[in-house]
């Protein structure tokens, strides 16, 4: 590109005054700026939150996509009907369900095992969208840690315990327990 090209917009540097040419005021400006910030932080008016002691605030924990939980109905049974819709919807293939015949009268199947590999999960929330009985939900628990890969594979008991842990803070977003909502739509019962 030539220097006289129309596409180049030439901007001239602003002219420095006497003080600017002596570098005096810019230097003092710099010093006073850092001093202001120093004393503001020293007075305790900084912005840092001490994380593990001070929990961050969520705008709305109900729409945060953190660790999964498996909801329970009012009899304490898992709400899941092992329809595999979440596993099908999951883009990361992190949900592994083994369905078997339900011991209860109000549904045909229930998950014998329900395993989510939290390390593969991308926390997109598609499982939550797909679930017809609102059994799987994402909570606002975000500090998910583990000492091994095995520890990060959550089984049914662990997912149900996440529900126990969070049900007080975050009520179920469902239309009601499975028994009241009837069979999943499109299925002949």
């Amino acid at each position, binding site marked *: 590109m030539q*220097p*006289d090209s129309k596409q180049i917009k*030439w901007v*001239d*540097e602003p002219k*420095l005054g*006497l003080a600017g*040419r*002596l570098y005096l005021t810019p*230097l003092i400006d*710099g*010093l006073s*700026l*850092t*001093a202001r*910030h*120093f004393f*503001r*932080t*020293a007075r305790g008016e*900084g*912005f*840092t939150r001490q994380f593990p002691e001070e929990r961050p605030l969520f705008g709305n924990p109900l729409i945060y996509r953190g660790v999964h939980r498996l909801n329970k109905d009012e009899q304490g049974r898992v709400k899941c009907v092992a329809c595999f819709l979440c596993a099908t919807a999951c883009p990361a293939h992190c949900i592994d369900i083994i369905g078997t015949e339900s011991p209860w009268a109000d549904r045909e199947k229930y998950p014998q095992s329900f395993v989510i590999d939290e390390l593969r999960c991308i926390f997109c929330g598609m499982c939550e969208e797909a679930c017809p009985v609102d059994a799987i939900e994402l909570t606002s628990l975000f500090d998910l840690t583990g000492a091994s890969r095995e520890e990060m594979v959550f089984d049914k008991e662990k997912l149900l315990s996440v529900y126990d842990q969070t049900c007080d803070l975050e009520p179920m977003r469902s239309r009601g327990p499975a028994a009241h909502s009837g069979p999943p739509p499109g299925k002949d019962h």
Partner: protein
Amino acid sequence: MQVWLEPLIKIVLVVLATQAAVAYLVLVERKVAAYMQDRLGPNRVGPWGLFQPIADGAKFILKEELIPAGADRALFLIAPVSILAAATLAFATIPFGYLVPWPGADPIELTIAPKVDIGLLFVFAIGSLGVYGVILGGWASNNKYSLLGGLRSSAQLVSYEIPLGLSVIGVLLFSGSLRLETIITAQAQSGWWWFAVQPLGFLVFMVSGCAEASRLPFDLPECEQELVGGYHTEYTAMKFGMFAFAEYLHLITVAFLTVNLYLGGWHLWGLAPYADEVGWFGAIVRVLVLNIKMLLVILFFMWIRWSWPRFRYDQLMNIAWKVMIPLGVINLLVCAVCQEFLDPKNYLTRAVLGWLAVGGCVLYAALFAHPGKTRLKAPGIT
């Protein structure tokens, strides 16, 4: 007290104190930097992060020592040792207090090697040995970036030694000695600190001292942005730690020299005046005054580090050769004229002349200095 015992105690004291000071200066630096950037800095190891230096030291010692395959092993090992040794040795003639009374003997001077008549010269000579560590480290690493870093670093250190030397000649003229104790005493006796009498020399000394200690805005030796860390790129663990230690020791040395040469040393009007008799109270107050002044100078260096942008390499060299050396010469000229023609006690006239010289330089810069003449211009604009 035995002849060898007294220096030995002082050596142990100074070495331990400076090592501890360096460890905690790193913490202070990190805290100051963090506060200026609206952060909190290290605050997890101990209350207010006070044990952070211990954790850092343990990390330095326990980390793996690596020597690059193509490196010159002997020189690679000598470099950090030499730079640290030179930085520590400079404290031999720097006073960190005044006389301390000793029962049944002469009062003890708080300098490792008191009454060394070449005191200041010794500090500068030893201080300039640090260049060897820098260039050896850069060369022995067998890494082009390290070599570049070492080269430009040594060029910077060598260049800034000239204005540094020029600026202190004025002090030597007024004090009549190279002994740092005498320089402090001269200021204490007259009641004038030399920075007020020779403002130009003080400015040149501060700038050159900052460059000699490789502090920002003169941190070209490290130059993390362009040189992948400069001359110590290939160094790991404690060998890197020794370079970092030496850097902070240089900072302490420069701060001590600034206080002793220009800011009156242990002298403070009213609290620690010049006195012939030696008492315990006076001795302790003088040590405190001197070291608090030193700490304030270091804090100022940290303050400017996080406030001002860094110089480009050609700007750095221009400042040394085209600004600082002429200013040093002007200062020397003014001091020499004062010393020749004025009454030795007439410090007011000297101060007035010194500040007039500053005014003249400012006026010259405002009228005749045009920075940025070589800038690329839009076509058609002359």
